């Protein structure tokens, strides 16, 4: 598996898109820091970018990579390599290279700016950690979708729909249920509903670390009480990990049974 990973990763970090992605983050980091001059404000803007863009890019990149490398995959399948290793290798290659673009792209300007001496370093690391999680989650989901759909257009469509659902529709349904059931105590419900969607979970985790969390008022206090503790933090990391592991398992399962 490590060999496949190595080659996929190698292949990807030399592709134009990785550069574009990397340069995008680099530019974003520099622009935010040197025009804004405020690390914590930059973190807020980055959060908006990260929770929307990372899942979308992860999804599209994952699906594209899978379909584009299908013939190569077949070549690999004929080699004496375990099937699971092939797909895991490719998956980690894609997710890894995207994560690297993110971490380096944002990391370089922040380090140059003097982040290491700033106390925003924890917020920033959290940003990168959730960003990495979201990358792994959405690349994984897109791989599962792609491996389940021979038809490229269909696979692409499903992947984008999935992104749309988790990034937008889910919150719409969430909002509607909050309004419909406003008579009832909703704290536990909103806590659970937030934790179940990796995008919402990441958003809240980052928000709670920032000053802006004061706007969350009473509800925010409850969230802070939960997510602010070590246990809550561990639980949310566990949920993100679960979201990462489930698609990987699904991928392994699908890979074993799939005909090429």
């Amino acid at each position, binding site marked *: 598996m490590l060999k496949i990973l190595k080659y996929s990763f190698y292949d990807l970090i030399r592709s134009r898109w990785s550069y574009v992605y990397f340069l995008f983050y680099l530019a974003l980091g520099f622009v935010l820091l040197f025009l804004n001059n405020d690390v914590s404000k930059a973190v*807020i803007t980055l*959060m*908006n970018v990260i*929770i*929307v863009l990372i899942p979308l890019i992860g999804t599209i990149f994952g699906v594209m990579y899978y379909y584009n490398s299908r013939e190569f995959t077949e070549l690999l399948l004929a080699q004496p390599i375990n099937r699971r290793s092939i797909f895991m290798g490719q998956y980690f290659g894609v997710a890894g290279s995207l994560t690297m673009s993110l971490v380096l792209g944002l990391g370089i300007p922040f380090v140059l700016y003097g982040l290491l001496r700033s106390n925003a370093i924890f917020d920033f690391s959290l940003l990168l950690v959730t960003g990495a999680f979201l990358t792994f989650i959405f690349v994984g989901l897109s791989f599962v979708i792609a491996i389940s759909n021979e038809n490229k257009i269909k696979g692409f469509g499903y992947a984008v729909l999935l992104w749309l659902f988790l*990034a*937008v*529709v*889910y*919150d*719409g349904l*969430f*909002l509607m249920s*909050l*309004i419909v059931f*406003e008579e009832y105590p*909703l*704290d536990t419900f*909103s806590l659970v509903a*937030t934790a179940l969607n990796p*995008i*919402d979970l990441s*958003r*809240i985790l980052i*928000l709670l670390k920032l*000053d*802006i969390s*004061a*706007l*969350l*008022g*009473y*509800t*925010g*206090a409850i*969230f802070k009480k939960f997510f602010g503790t070590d246990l809550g933090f561990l639980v949310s990391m566990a949920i993100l990990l679960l979201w990462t592991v489930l698609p990987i398992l699904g991928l392994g399962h699908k890979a074993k049974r799939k005909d090429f």
Partner: protein
Amino acid sequence: MKIKKEHIKFILGCILLMGFQIGMANTWTVCATCENNSIKETIARATDHDTIRIEKGTYKEFEILVDKPLVIKGIGYPIVDGEKKGEIFKITSDNVTLDGLFVINVGVSYTKDNAAIRVVQSKNFLIQNMVLEQLFFGIYLEKSSHGKVYHNRIIGQAVDEYNSGNGIQLWYSTDVEVSKNHVQGTRDGIYLEFSDRITITDNTSVDNLRYGLHFMFSNNDVYSNNTFENNGAGVAVMFSKFITMKDNTFQKNWGTAAYGMLLKEINDAEISGNTFEENTIGINIEGSNRIQYHNNDFINNGWAIRVIGACYTNSFTGNNFLYNSFDISYNSKLNDNVFEGNFWSSYTGYDLDKDGVGDVPYRPVKLFSYIVNRTPETIVLLRSLFMDIIDFSERVSPVFTPDELKDIRPLMKIRP
């Protein structure tokens, strides 16, 4: 002629004598090694209009009663240490001046509001250049009037509301001037209850547990050029009429239940030229009518203005709303409140006739803020993509937010 001369001599003598009598007002010096080494005893010995000079040193005294018109002046900030035994100065006479003392260790009590300096039913007092530390209540004016509290420094270390007192408290007092004081670390920095015609200027009130400034049932007061920063909940103006609030700065009151200013049941007030910066809520308005808000700056607040309950005939003109998460939040009808000629940083309209006024009205209420008002729990969707999308669509074609709530003459350029 001779008689006349005698007469004149007598009159002159009388005048001289009187002058001597007045000039006879003694100056007493208190110091550790002096004959007078106790403030209390020296006050007892002094007569009306005497001056007591307190030399540098530490005086462990409390419950010092000033019951005659005196000038009590510290030289080089002598320390008056109450050893936490009770109140330190109590003024019950008119025309008393306290100047330049360092007063520490007021006794904390759960039954008595012990103060470092208490003024009871007195007129024409002057309390200036005092430094108060380790205190419960700082300066407590009780049924007093026509006095001045000037240039004092009050530093508390309040931790809990139930066992801390207020920095400067006015209770049933009128015509007092409170200026250039610095109050920090108390419960309420400055507290007014049933006190009218008070002028509060150039004070700074920071890091107080509850409010930087707190009005209750006090009318016709003016406060201007003060700075209120990082207080537990900001400034509260409640149940009062005809208050003028000008050129103050309210900043960094940031917390789940904090605001720059809370208005509750306030009528006929004027709020102008103030700066509200980085507060969770700039102004929280409950049931307040006929208030003019003009030329204020609202910068980087969570909510610039939040209106709760019915508020009638308020007008918002010429204000700058800059980079607030939410400009206005309303949970009731507009009730003939007017927004006109303000600058809104999130305004995206255009000005074809170049008259400096946008041609398209600005709607300051976001759909999200409307929804949050309805169902507070929905705030968890703050900064989600879904909310951005529906806010955008609502801005393009309003369906839910009140149609009449708009600034029909939004400024194109920031008011300088």
